[in-house]
């Protein structure tokens, strides 16, 4: 076949053209105004109030978790404030039969998907019962190895596809996670099998201290989906409506047999990476913090709902009160969990103990009975 003589070698231009196409998708702007009426999901008043209530609840949960951690009553905790829209509006687009594979910051999504709150606290406290996911709750415990959940999600999605289920696997990582090999393997496997998976990268700007610009030369993380041949979009991760629509849209496609999608939610974590000594002032300025706080998901959603006349101070106070009460109850329940024993741990290694564990079981049973 003769070469097209007018064709120029210009890979730079190709890249530019692709990158220009990745515009950030937004529906509700920072002032709480709908700027993209066509894309408005037109959630019912009840749904809007429910989503707002969950975001308020989760902000309180974050505050309480931080203070419990400081009192030495919680253990491992990765703060979530700033990411409520990204986390909760995406979960809001799911059905109960969808399966969530969370990263370690994604505890709110699995709680709203059915994991009892006291178990989330037990997970933080390092008690094995925290991860004993109850029957019928379709979540996996928070993943610690960054990116591992992406290839596992491809597996869950492939399994659902083989079972003919009308459900999706959804997984979350961060901007740092999108540099992992497992990130690429996950989106690539799901793409190759056209499995019903939704991959979310919550680009909260920093992987611990490493800024987003250092992770990749790619202008957006969303465009990485192109390499796997899967639809991908960058959304305003502080805009609950945009996150909801992008997730719902990706879910619908997956259910229709059109394969996986990648969503980059551009957001910010107000707090430290975890409560284990990270100090964000070493790598971020307060100017950056306050610029992002102006985009706060709760503030803009509150403005929007108040203008619609379906939210007010009293309603919010009610939710806050309820959150505090439920958190208190959950902590009480977590406090009541049995003291963890080595014998418990030995018994969850295999279906049947091999000789070495049997012998060790006898040793620790004796030791722990004293």
């Amino acid at each position: 076949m003769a070469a097209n003589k007018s064709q120029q070698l210009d890979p730079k231009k190709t890249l530019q053209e692709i990158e220009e196409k990745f515009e950030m998708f937004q529906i509700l702007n920072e002032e709480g105004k709908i700027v993209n009426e066509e894309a408005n999901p037109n959630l019912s008043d009840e749904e809007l109030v429910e989503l707002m209530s969950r975001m308020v609840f989760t902000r309180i949960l974050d505050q309480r978790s931080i203070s419990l951690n400081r009192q030495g009553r919680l253990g491992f905790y990765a703060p979530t404030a700033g990411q409520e829209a990204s986390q909760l509006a995406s979960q809001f687009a799911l059905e109960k039969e969808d399966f969530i594979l969370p990263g370690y910051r994604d505890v709110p999504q699995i709680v709203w998907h059915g994991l009892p709150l006291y178990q989330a606290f037990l997970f933080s406290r390092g008690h094995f019962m925290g991860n004993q996911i109850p029957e019928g709750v379709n979540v996996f415990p928070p993943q610690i190895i960054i990116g591992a959940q992406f290839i596992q999600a491809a597996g869950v999605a492939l399994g659902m596809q083989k079972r003919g289920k009308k459900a999706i696997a959804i997984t979350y990582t961060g901007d740092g996670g999108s540099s992992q090999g497992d990130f690429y393997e996950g989106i690539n496997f799901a793409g190759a099998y056209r499995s019903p998976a939704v991959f979310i990268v919550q680009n909260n700007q920093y992987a611990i201290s490493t800024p987003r610009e250092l992770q990749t030369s790619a202008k957006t993380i969303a465009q990485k989906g192109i390499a796997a041949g899967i639809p991908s979009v960058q959304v305003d991760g502080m805009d609950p409506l945009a996150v909801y629509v992008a997730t719902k849209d990706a879910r619908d496609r997956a259910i229709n047999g059109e394969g996986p999608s990648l969503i980059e939610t551009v957001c910010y974590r107000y707090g430290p990476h975890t409560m284990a000594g990270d100090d964000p002032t070493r790598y971020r300025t307060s100017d950056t913090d306050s610029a992002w706080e102006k985009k706060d998901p709760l503030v803009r959603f509150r403005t929007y709902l108040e203008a619609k006349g379906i939210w007010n101070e009293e309603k919010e106070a009610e939710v806050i009160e309820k959150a505090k009460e439920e958190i208190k109850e959950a902590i009480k329940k977590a406090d009541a969990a049995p003291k963890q024993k080595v014998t418990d741990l030995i018994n969850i290694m295999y279906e049947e103990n091999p000789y070495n564990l049997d012998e060790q079981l006898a040793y620790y049973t004796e030791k722990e009975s004293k």
Partner: protein
Amino acid sequence: MAQLTMIQAITEALRTELKNDENVLVFGEDVGVNGGVFRATEGLQKEFGEDRVFDTPLAESGIGGLAVGLALEGFRPVPEIQFFGFVFEVMDSISGQLARMRFRTGGAFNAPVTIRSPFGGGVHTPEMHADSLELLMTSTPGVKVVIPSTPYDAKGLLISAIRDNDPVIFLEHMKLYRSFRGEVPEEEYTIPLGKADVKREGTDLTIISYGAMVHESLKAAEELEKEGHSVEVIDLRTIQPLDIETIIASVEKTNRAIVVQEAQKQAGIAANVVAEITERAILSLEAPVLRVAAPDTVYPFSQAETVWLPGVRDIVETAKKVLTF
């Protein structure tokens, strides 16, 4: 009874379990239409369809992660890692994820996954194909590790591995794939995991081994027999967990033992066996328990393989030291 090679016995086991349980899925690089680079999955895609036996993109970590996810959906995945030297790419999926699934979730989930993989020296492969890396697996709590040495054992052990509700690493020595045939019943049968096999009975010395070294040990036993020594050869078959009862019963009978492994001496499967014998049967011993193993270098370039790998002469020499102690 059919005379089969080990690779044919493995295919038979896979076929049996694909037939028995619709949750069994076989996948990996080139396992579909190509039937695997060693033909372990020959004909299986045709027989069971692309839904049950399928190719994956070329990424070992992805294959491991896929197995985790499929297990979460209630499947019984049997992935293949094309060569076990590539295991470093999938270490997190195995040791960090699969092995911990039951533990991490307090028993809410388990991982009935069997990872099959060829390994082993003596067949002149390029680098990263032949290494004996089983210690990486046995140092991982939560998995079982199986290494068959005969076609008969391969079929029965693989069926047991697939039916096991915990992850099993099933390592297949490349040199044994086609080097000899053995009797393999056509009907299904199982061999329990964690159970060693006395491949030869004797009264003066116990040789404990696994994999291809079982055959070197049997040859050594014959040579020693000619010199009047009655040698017992135990094939561990499962190296995690060990069959302590069989090992100790034999040592209590013979009072002398050596342990033979193909892996480097520092890769301590043999060291672990020696420690167990020392802890449990030291008063039965008439001599120290010695090891035969490869030198502690990286697996050699293929031209040096035959001198590097432990062989009959090494085993006989070490056995004599123990017999004459």
